[in-house]
């Protein structure tokens, strides 16, 4: 997490003054991102009707989902509203599945001796990084 701390520091040093000015003018603080979006390398027709993947069907049951052709015919954008960490993980998995036919796994690989702390930290940090913070 060292780099993250310095990321914050650098942002503070470089952009602090500008950010303050910006906020004052806008009056409102931007909230957390409302949509989580990925672009999948397939045509929109592959995501609808009989072709619609089950995972996408499940997402639409609980979330507003927007499916749009990307400009220039460069794939299809899938945006999910109010996506929490678990949903973000599902959306990333959906993209992987649509493009490569499977969801890549890293759990279960060889590893050497973990410290007690490490044994607890590996799955937690993995989950954090898989979901991403927002």
């Amino acid at each position: 997490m060292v780099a993250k701390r310095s990321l914050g520091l650098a942002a503070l040093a470089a952009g602090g003054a500008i950010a303050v000015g910006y906020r004052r003018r806008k009056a409102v603080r931007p909230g957390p991102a409302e949509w989580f979006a990925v672009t999948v390398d397939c045509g929109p027709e592959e995501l609808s009707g009989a072709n619609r993947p089950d995972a996408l069907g499940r997402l639409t049951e609980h979330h507003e989902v927007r499916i749009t052709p990307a400009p220039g015919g460069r794939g299809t954008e899938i945006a999910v509203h109010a996506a929490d960490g678990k949903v973000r993980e599902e959306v990333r998995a959906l993209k992987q599945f649509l493009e490569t036919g499977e969801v890549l796994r890293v759990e279960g690989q060889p590893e050497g001796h973990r410290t007690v702390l490490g044994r607890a930290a590996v799955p937690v940090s993995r989950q954090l990084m898989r979901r991403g913070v927002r």
Partner: protein
Amino acid sequence: MKALCWTGVNEVAVEEVPDPRILNRQDVIVRVTASSTCGSDLHLLDGYVPTMMAGDVIGHEFLGEVVETGPDVRDRRVGERVVVCSIIGCGRCRNCRAEMWSLCDNSNPDPGFLETLNGHATAGIFGYSHAMGGFAGSHAEYVRVPYGDVNAFPVPEGVADANAVFASDAVPTGWMGADIAGIRPGDVVAVWGCGGVGQMAARAAFLLGAERVIAIDRLPERLEMTARHTGAETLDYEEVDVLDALKEMTGGRGPDVCVEAVGMEGHGTGAQYAYDRVKQAVRLQTDRGLPLRQAIHACRKGGTVSVLGVYLGFVDKFPMGAVMNKGLTLRSGQQHGQRYIPMLLERMAAGEVDASHLLTHPMALEDAPRGYEMFKNKEDGCVRAVFTP
């Protein structure tokens, strides 16, 4: 099996770990026959790559034999001798299909850290921290290779192991540095760093039409090796002022292309170096950037700076003024190995590319901790230590 694990800053150890197994249908398992140290590992050793955890198996530049294939593997066969690209691609996303394999969207299952740091994540890399996907590395008896059909390449019979192993990383990286810089016949190319990557960039520059290549380092044995094996002229940055020397050697113009093959632990002389070290040590900047600044400063007006050295975060005193006012083009990236490896193996078979001299220290995997010590401290002329399990 035995594997080399990162156990802490500047600490590695050979440990007994479980064998890898097929985790995805497109995986292959490779029995490793040669696995090399790389300058990128020094960033891990020195603790500049966050998200390393004690117990992580490291190593990413390797050669071996396919011993098992997942049910959806179509092209790879058990028994094939293969070199595996250090950076993992899926072969199907838009970036892979555009031959920008290190920008793969799917091979890094845990992209969150890099997304926060950089906006978007890089592809997965073997043995290179959890931020890069947390893949077990190749300093081991066996390694699991995801998307085996696109990441493992059969090696032509006539190419020796000692040459082919570097088709995994150093050779395609060097080639990419020259290729993305758009070298044109008659160009003068300067290369910072005479490690495996810099040497291969120098060689590639000539093969792509450069008329003169000037390689820069301070280690006499590396300078001599670079001159002998690539035909480049050399500069010792502890002996001469690099910027003055390059101006003089290029009639005041500066090199057309500057390749930076040093990375975030760039060494240097003088006050700027001291400043960089202190700031990096207290994490006020993550990356030291002296050779990068030099490359930008030296480059001719309208020229191209090609950055192969690895940076992860921020460099201080980045000379944006020079980039802007000299109209420079900046190119960079982790290597797109899959784009070059088949061609490079052919060139190796034809005798046009030979990297085997980089292998200065063949060692048993058991001796890998000593190998890293030698490689890190550049002892005994070590350019690359290569481990055999």
